């Protein structure tokens, strides 16, 4: 039954290609609801996997799957409303690829076999490429070409890393199925040198997909050129899936007693990503690119928190949940802004609170959330990461971390203030805002808020199961 979470969107996606656009929208929403149902069944382990050779129900995978399913439900509702406003010549292809993309990401979340995980991650690249260039503008084509090529080459290196990990097994004459769960049981017998080499290649490969600097160059282009529902999905769900690949290998390294090594690699990549995004966010003039750089920053924070371990690891997992919710909300709001002003240039926007009260308020609240202000969840997760790092005695790393956070906040807040409060001469807007399009981002934000006030026990338990294997605790 576990396999249904990717089989159903796969079949629905192929069907949508051949159906008229209107029916395609209906199937999009229906599949989102069915997907959410199956995810719920899996979450509470009501049904198990049909065949355990390639797929498994793991706590960290379930976390990613639940976020994905929840986001997709609201993004699909938004997409239907969005499609009413824009002219898209190939709408069936867009809707179909959205579903195939969902299928590929679900497959990442439940994959247990090392190579199957790789296949699924590569599939997410390929299925999301058509989403980026639906508009067929020169910029969109350039973004797609960069995305497909850089990510494919990066992920090819991850395959090399996977081969090295498998070879570390042959080297020490251990024979078990090549799945993460089986490898973890024999991890201490694996050849450490090849395992280290494999981990480096895997981090470079999946890190490219996750947007870790310096392999992030495709991310701002792809996220800014894609239509907004696709950007929200790319930023909110896809980056988590890539992180899951890194996290699985980190777990394996930890089980093999090489946790220190892989932690340091993750911390270095995390800090590099934060610094790079801090530098580039300062002089942005495109608000979708600004959000994309903020995604790079947040992925850096998650990698950093995972590397520090302990309390910070709990923070990193919380950060993943809240970043997905808040960032998708921001990208959906950005879609409304783009429809209204018809431009992505920050200087040409302004007066949002007057022209788009609902979207303006959501965008502002989302920005406060993403910069780590209470009462939003990113405040708690960043605080936990900082506390965890201080406890671990990583003073230099934490100084760079806090410095980047301040820089990013200073850079981004200037831009957001301008968008929301700046004077604007002409009051004409292309598409007025509507409740159907304003509601999904509001609900996503409110969910983040609700999870701060009351984190359900089952989520808490799942996070704890996910992090306990590499020594993460809530009590520090």
């Amino acid at each position, binding site marked *: 039954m576990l396999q249904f979470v990717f089989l159903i969107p796969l079949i629905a996606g192929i069907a949508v290609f051949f159906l008229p656009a209107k029916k395609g929208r209906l199937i999009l929403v229906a599949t989102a609801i069915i997907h959410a149902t199956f995810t719920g069944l899996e979450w509470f382990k009501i049904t198990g996997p049909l065949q355990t050779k390639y797929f498994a129900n793991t706590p960290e995978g379930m976390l990613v799957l639940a976020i994905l399913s929840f986001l997709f439900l609201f993004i699909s509702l938004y997409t239907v409303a969005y499609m009413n406003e824009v002219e898209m010549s190939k709408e069936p292809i867009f809707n179909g690829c959205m579903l195939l993309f969902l299928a590929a990401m679900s497959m990442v979340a439940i994959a247990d076999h090392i190579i199957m995980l790789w296949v699924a991650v590569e599939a997410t690249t390929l299925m999301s490429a058509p989403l980026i260039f639906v508009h067929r503008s020169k910029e969109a084509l350039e973004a797609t070409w960069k995305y497909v090529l850089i990510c494919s*080459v990066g992920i090819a290196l991850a*395959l090399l890393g996977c081969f090295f990990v498998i070879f570390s097994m042959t080297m020490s004459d251990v024979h078990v199925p090549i799945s993460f769960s089986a490898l973890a049981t024999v991890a201490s017998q694996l050849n450490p040198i090849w395992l280290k080499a494999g981990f480096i290649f895997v981090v470079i490969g999946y890190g490219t997909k996750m947007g870790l600097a310096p392999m992030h160059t495709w991310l*701002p282009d792809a996220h800014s050129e894609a239509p907004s529902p696709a950007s929200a999905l790319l930023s909110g769900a896809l980056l988590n899936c890539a992180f899951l690949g890194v996290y699985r290998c980190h777990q394996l390294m930890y089980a093999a007693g090489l946790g220190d090594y892989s932690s340091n690699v993750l911390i270095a990549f995390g800090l590099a990503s934060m610094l790079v995004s801090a530098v580039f966010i300062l002089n*942005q003039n495109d608000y979708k690119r600004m959000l994309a750089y903020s995604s790079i920053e947040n992925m850096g924070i998650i990698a950093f928190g995972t590397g520090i371990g302990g309390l910070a690891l709990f923070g990193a997992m919380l950060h993943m949940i809240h970043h997905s919710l808040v960032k998708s909300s921001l990208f959906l709001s950005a879609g409304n802004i783009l429809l209204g002003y018809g431009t992505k240039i920050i200087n040409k926007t302004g007066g949002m609170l007057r022209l788009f009260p609902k979207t303006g308020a959501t965008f502002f609240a989302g920005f406060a959330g993403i910069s780590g202000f209470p009462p939003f969840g990113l405040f708690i997760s960043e605080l936990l990461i900082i506390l965890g790092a201080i406890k671990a005695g990583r003073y230099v790393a934490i100084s760079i971390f806090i410095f980047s956070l301040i820089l990013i906040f200073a850079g981004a807040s200037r831009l957001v203030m301008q968008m929301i409060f700046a004077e604007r001469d002409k009051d004409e807007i292309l598409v007025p805002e509507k409740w159907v399009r304003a509601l999904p981002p509001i609900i996503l934000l409110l969910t983040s808020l609700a999870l701060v006030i009351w984190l359900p026990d089952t989520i808490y338990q799942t996070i704890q199961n996910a992090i306990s294997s590499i020594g993460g605790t809530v009590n520090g």
Partner: protein
Amino acid sequence: MLALILLSVLLSLRSNRLMALVKLMAFQGVVVSAVPLFLETEHGLTFNLFVFFILLVLVKGVFIPGLMYIAVKKVVASREIEPIIGYHASLFAGLIMIVFSVYVTNNLHLAMLPAGHKLLLVTAITTMGAGLVLLMARRKAITQVIGYLMMENGIYLIGTALAKEVHTQYVVEFAVLLDLIVAVLVMGIVLNDINHTFDDVDTALMGQLKD
């Protein structure tokens, strides 16, 4: 066998016509698919291995080069490759790569590998490196795809040399192959659109997006 792969690698670094490059890729695809057949396997030549060999040849030797052939035919503008790094320099880089791969392989202390596998590893690393050179040193988008495919061939060979377990799991193997097919299809579609929009597939024309 391995000499044939190395020959195709060096020729592709040297070739200045897109058509010649596509034909070389088809040749390389067939040879690379045949490599597992010539390695000593525990069970000898099984039926499954043979069926998979046929499948690989069809995909790597016929289907993918066929797609590339159509793509080249459609791009009427110019069939020259326009290198960023010259042909002779690329060729020289290829030769250095072979020396480097031999050095790397000898220093890995892989005493447990059968003799043939070591030479295979040398070839594989060279193929992968040459693929990266093609990817970076050529301006045409099609050559970049071919560079990617060559890199993929190299990684497949490394997998053959090191991770025997993978090659006996046909479901996984088939899934990887399926990914490769879809990758080439998607790249082909984007390539076609780039050609329509820019009237060329020169990546130097694309440079609007930067910070």
